[in-house]
């Protein structure tokens, strides 16, 4: 168990390093940090001064090493745009995104798994058709379209919900639905497929023959096995949310980490982007670890490590 934990930790550090290296290089190639820092209206002299002052003329490897050293001790630097600490910015905005993501994945699982199970029990029935329809809607409906339609219906016409902002829990209802429905189709389809397979296997027939009541058969045996790929997928989907929340956060004016990431990338605000990517990658690592652990608990045949 300890060696497993050690292995996963080393993996975590390697991932964080690799990701930050790649993103640093990408940002460096696609923009000039001196211009980004100096701002739109700076003169050439201003830009040169900044280049020297901040050491932007040094080789990229040296600059990366500087950033890494500071990051390791918790100093993520100052945003080029806001001139405040990056860690402060992230701490301010990440909670909104996390809350949204969590609500969305709960909504997605709560919607998708029951539908998937129901469709598997009664294939080709009305419920199967409805779930298929919803699943296709979930894939083919661009999220900004769905978001705006919900706004027009529930905010402009019915006045039941606020349009944008993050002040109250009502402000999170529509964003949760929009972000969640996007993750739901994959979860639903996979659940359905898994259940279909499992339901027709020998040991399920045996369990039925033994006289076990259907719900027991369903949940204790079938779902438990069908759900395994779904758990891994859900972890990935949750991760997607952090990236996919850009559109939702933009449209609903939620000012979370997703919106910050997009704006920072387009503003060439390197320190903020680096900080956010570091935060996200650490988060994914934890997520995939949890998913693997859950899977191992569900099916002991899957040996971890």
């Amino acid at each position, binding site marked *: 168990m300890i060696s497993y934990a050690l292995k996963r930790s080393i993996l975590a550090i390697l*991932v964080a390093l690799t990701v930050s290296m*790649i993103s640093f290089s990408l940002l460096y190639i696609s923009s000039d940090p001196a211009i980004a820092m100096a701002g739109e209206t700076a003169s050439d002299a201003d830009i040169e001064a900044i280049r020297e002052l901040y050491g932007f003329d040094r080789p990229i490897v040296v600059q990366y090493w500087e950033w890494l050293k500071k990051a390791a001790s918790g100093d993520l630097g100052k945003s080029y745009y806001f001139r405040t600490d990056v860690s402060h910015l992230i701490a301010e905005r990440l909670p909104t995104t996390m809350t949204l993501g969590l609500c969305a994945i709960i909504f997605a699982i709560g919607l998708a798994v029951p539908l998937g199970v129901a469709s598997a029990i009664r294939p080709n029935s009305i419920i199967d058709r409805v779930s298929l329809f919803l699943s296709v809607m979930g894939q083919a409906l*661009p999220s900004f*379209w769905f978001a705006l339609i919900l706004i027009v219906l529930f905010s402009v016409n019915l006045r039941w919900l606020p349009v944008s902002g993050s002040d109250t829990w009502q402000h999170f209802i529509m964003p949760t639905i929009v972000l969640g429905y996007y993750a739901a189709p994959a979860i639903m389809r*996979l659940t359905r497929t898994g259940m279909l397979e499992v339901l027709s296997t020998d040991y399920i027939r045996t369990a039925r023959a033994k006289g076990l009541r259907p719900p027991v058969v369903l949940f204790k045996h079938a779902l438990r096995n069908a759900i395994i*790929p779904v758990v891994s997928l859900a972890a990935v989907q949750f991760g997607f949310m952090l990236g996919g929340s850009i559109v939702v956060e933009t449209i609903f004016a939620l000012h979370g980490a997703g919106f910050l990431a997009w704006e920072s990338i387009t503003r060439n605000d390197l320190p903020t982007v680096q900080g956010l990517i570091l935060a996200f*990658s650490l988060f994914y690592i934890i997520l995939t670890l949890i998913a693997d652990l859950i899977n191992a608990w569900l099916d002991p045949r899957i040996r971890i490590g």
Partner: protein
Amino acid sequence: MTNSPQITSTSPISGVKSRVLRHKGMMIGSTIVVLVVLIAILAPLIAPHDPYHQDLLNRLKPPVWDSRGTWEHIFGTDHLGRDYLSRLIYGSRISLLIGIGAALISGIIGTFLGVMAGYFGGRVDMVVTFLITVRLSMPVVLVALAVVAIVGGSLQVVIGVLGLLLWDRFAVVMRSSTLQIRSMDYVTAARAVGCSTTRILMTEVMPNVVNNLIVIATLEIAHAIILEAALSFLGLGVQPPLPSWGLMVSEGKDMMLFEPWLITIPGVALFALVLSVNLLGDGMRDVTAPENRN
């Protein structure tokens, strides 16, 4: 007189064929897909206008079913006066290419990585998990932006970028499915008998994970097409004036509250394509693995 039993042909091919023809979903799905492919191929013959021809005096004309619409432009015109129906028809080419191209590339990469990880475990698994986590932590947007800034935007770039970025779901699902399969009896049996790894992978593992593969593949085709819409919206996708359904949807966003048909029309086309791909995928799975049917 006793009726002699009919002996129908029992060859596997005719069995599959009859199942296909009887599977309603698959028939609908494949019909639509074939239709879209035909439209894409025959575009120059069926499009009423040149999809690139701008007419600044005839902008934002509504479709024919609106009181202000005309038969000249059945689906109306866009913000630059280009005929919407023609753009829709030519757009099918781009959307199909992107969906299939990206899904193919990402499918090959992801399946390979996922199956390797699931089957061999140990170090291989660690490396693949590492790659997956790295890929998940990289924002698609950042990579796309950087690539466009360096290489410029074009159809090939979009397909390549999407293909290289969308393999994670394939890998994740293939990995966990393979993990399950690995410990199944028939696999251990095959190993005991001394089959080579490749043989085991091909004949025991793949056929059993292919169901999930198909599910994910159909999802990713749709995903690639929709993602292209998001990228176009951000200016990183297919470059104008190339029509793609995704670009049409994002271009229509600005007038969404006033002329909703600008989004609805390509949106419905996208919906139809995604629906049919799903039906096709489901059908293929049902038909080739009959024990999974009701």
